[in-house]
């Protein structure tokens, strides 16, 4: 300390040296607590998903063990009771194949109807619409995404179903030669097609808003380059937007598929549940896991409730897989080049 500058010396004379502040990158206690709490909060989603799996599996374990693989390959749902009224687990059969396949069929119909409409709508909103129409439509579509499912259920039942049945008859009349549109019995009411139409109105807002988001991320320089080369709007969309946004739209469609598979109330009101695998989508006989759970739950005894828990587990896993794939696709698309 003998060779310090004069200034420092005079400071030393006037006041005692303050204790040298310790400079460290170690987080303070408050930060440690904060980071711990936030991490715990963040991990709660992991915990909840895990708990959902564990508890549904735990409750459904008995039924799953007694049914084995037959639970997802068989189509019978029969509760046999012994003479004192207890459910006889070994004699009863629980199989959800028809329901699982029906769920996928309804959701697929919904996606097939919704995707072209949503993509056209998103293209219009991103590249064609004047700004006031765009703002109005975006607000309306967001509002529609916030409509409760029971609203779609009642509207679907009272307003849309008669129309959808008429459309089903038209399709049957002109496209009977396609196997899935054949009819062995003439019942058009409450068919998987009708359920698919109702579901499509529910997922159009979801797919539209995801597609719109993806389209609006299209690099502006490429759009301008296309225009500068003399492209029309359609030529620009075909050359720039579609190659850029294709996989994102696929992801959005899969998110819609996942949403459609998990929908309960709207399907319950417009679908006739039948425990038989039915590929003819216009016939009024379909399956849906979520609706079946709601239908059976009221009158179910303890064992049947366990079977319903197992069905819920199957639905949970199915939607989780579809959603995960969709999210991976959507996330990968954002900000990626051609």
């Amino acid at each position, binding site marked *: 300390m003998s060779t310090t500058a004069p200034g420092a010396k005079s400071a030393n004379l006037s006041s005692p040296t303050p204790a040298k502040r310790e400079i460290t990158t170690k987080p303070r206690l408050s930060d440690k607590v904060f980071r711990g709490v936030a991490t715990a909060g963040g991990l709660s989603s992991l915990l909840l998903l895990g708990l959902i799996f564990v508890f549904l599996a735990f409750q459904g374990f008995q039924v799953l063990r007694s049914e084995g693989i037959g639970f997802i390959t068989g189509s019978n749902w029969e509760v046999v009771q012994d003479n004192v009224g207890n459910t006889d687990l070994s004699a009863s059969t629980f199989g959800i194949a028809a329901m699982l396949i029906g769920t996928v069929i309804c959701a697929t119909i919904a996606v097939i109807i919704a995707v072209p409409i949503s993509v056209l709508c998103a293209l219009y909103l991103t590249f*064609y619409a004047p700004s006031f129409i765009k703002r109005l439509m975006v607000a309306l579509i*967001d509002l529609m995404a916030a409509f409760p*499912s029971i609203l779609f259920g009642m509207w679907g039942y009272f307003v849309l179903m008669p129309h959808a049945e008429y459309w089903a008859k038209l399709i049957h009349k002109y496209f009977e030669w396609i196997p899935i549109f054949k009819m062995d019995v003439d019942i058009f009411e409450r068919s998987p097609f009708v359920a698919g139409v109702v579901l499509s109105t529910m997922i159009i807002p979801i797919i539209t808003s995801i597609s719109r988001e993806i389209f609006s991320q299209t690099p502006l320089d490429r759009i301008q380059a296309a225009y500068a080369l003399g492209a029309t709007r*359609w030529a620009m969309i075909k050359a720039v937007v579609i190659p850029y946004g294709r996989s994102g739209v696929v992801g959005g469609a899969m998110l819609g598929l996942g949403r459609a598979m998990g929908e309960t109330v709207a399907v319950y009101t417009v679908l006739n549940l039948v425990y038989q695998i039915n590929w003819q989508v216009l016939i009024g006989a379909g399956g849906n896991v979520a609706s079946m759970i709601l239908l059976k739950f009221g009158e179910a005894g303890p064992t049947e409730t366990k079977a319903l828990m197992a069905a819920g587990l199957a639905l949970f896993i199915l939607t989780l897989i579809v*959603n995960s794939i969709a999210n991976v696709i959507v996330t990968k698309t954002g900000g990626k080049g051609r």
Partner: protein
Amino acid sequence: MSIDKPVVKPGKPWASTPKERAIDLGAILLAAFGSFALVALSELKGKLAYAGVFLLLIIVINFIHNYLSRGIASAKDSIASSFAVAGVLITLLPITSILFAVFERGKAGLKPNLFTTDMKLNGPNDPIDQGGLLHALTGSGIMVGIALIISLPIGILTAIYLTEIKGLFTRPIRFLVQAMSGVPSIVAGLFILSAIVFPITKTPSGLMGGLALAILMIPTIARTSEEVLLLIPEDLREAGIALGGTQWRTISQIVVPAAKSGLITAIILGVARVAGETAPLVLVSGGGDALNLDPTSGPMGSFPFYIWKAFTFGTNESIDRAWAGILVLLILVFILFFATRLVGADRNKK
């Protein structure tokens, strides 16, 4: 000395001239006339035929007009525009149909007794001027409140973890939150049944309903808050740290207050997401008909359950009741929705 400079007025060469507009209008009229004529003359009938023929004719007329005036590229472009407009119109159809149906069928039941009485003494089949949905209003309020109390801290902590802490688990947690937003609502109900109702409480109650709704609400709040926090400029965080603040103080006193209006939007969106959830409440809330303000015991009514019960009862009176309930629910969703717009507009102004 002054020279008269020629003043160039800005023009809009891309805007459509009156002549072009007249041609567009003419095409629409021609297509409408053509569709009426075709439907009248051929075997086709019904609204669907009118719409289909009209769309087809509009496309053909536009195609020919554009082909003759500007060539094939422009003609193809006109087909694409026609389809895009058709897509929007088809999307608008269900929205307007839903709004129209609900207001048309629900307004008859909108009477003051709806908000002052419950259904303790009335069945769903009673005339609409008896009984009401007071129990559903309070029940839904309590359950959504419980869900909010649980999911708000978890959702915001998750968002803070994802945007501020950026720890080891950021990517998996972001993935899981997205996956969680796809959990079917009935599975949330089954989970609460299997984890709490069957092993512990044995009876359904409003609290269980709130817990089931919380599971559906957490991902909505977490994802919206994350988006909002990402919008807060990095400068604010750096300024907080540079002033000697710890991370805790920077986030709690600078970042979160700056994002306040966005977080309120997240809350409203979360409430709107669960306010109409039916399936889990049918499973776990018990769905009482009497006013019940105690979430821990006894069945508790709720909006979706009230509508559900009246709808599945199936008589004319009860269905009128269901529509009235839906109308009130829709008005609530409207209010929540416009609240988010207002908060959002407020944020954009600042």
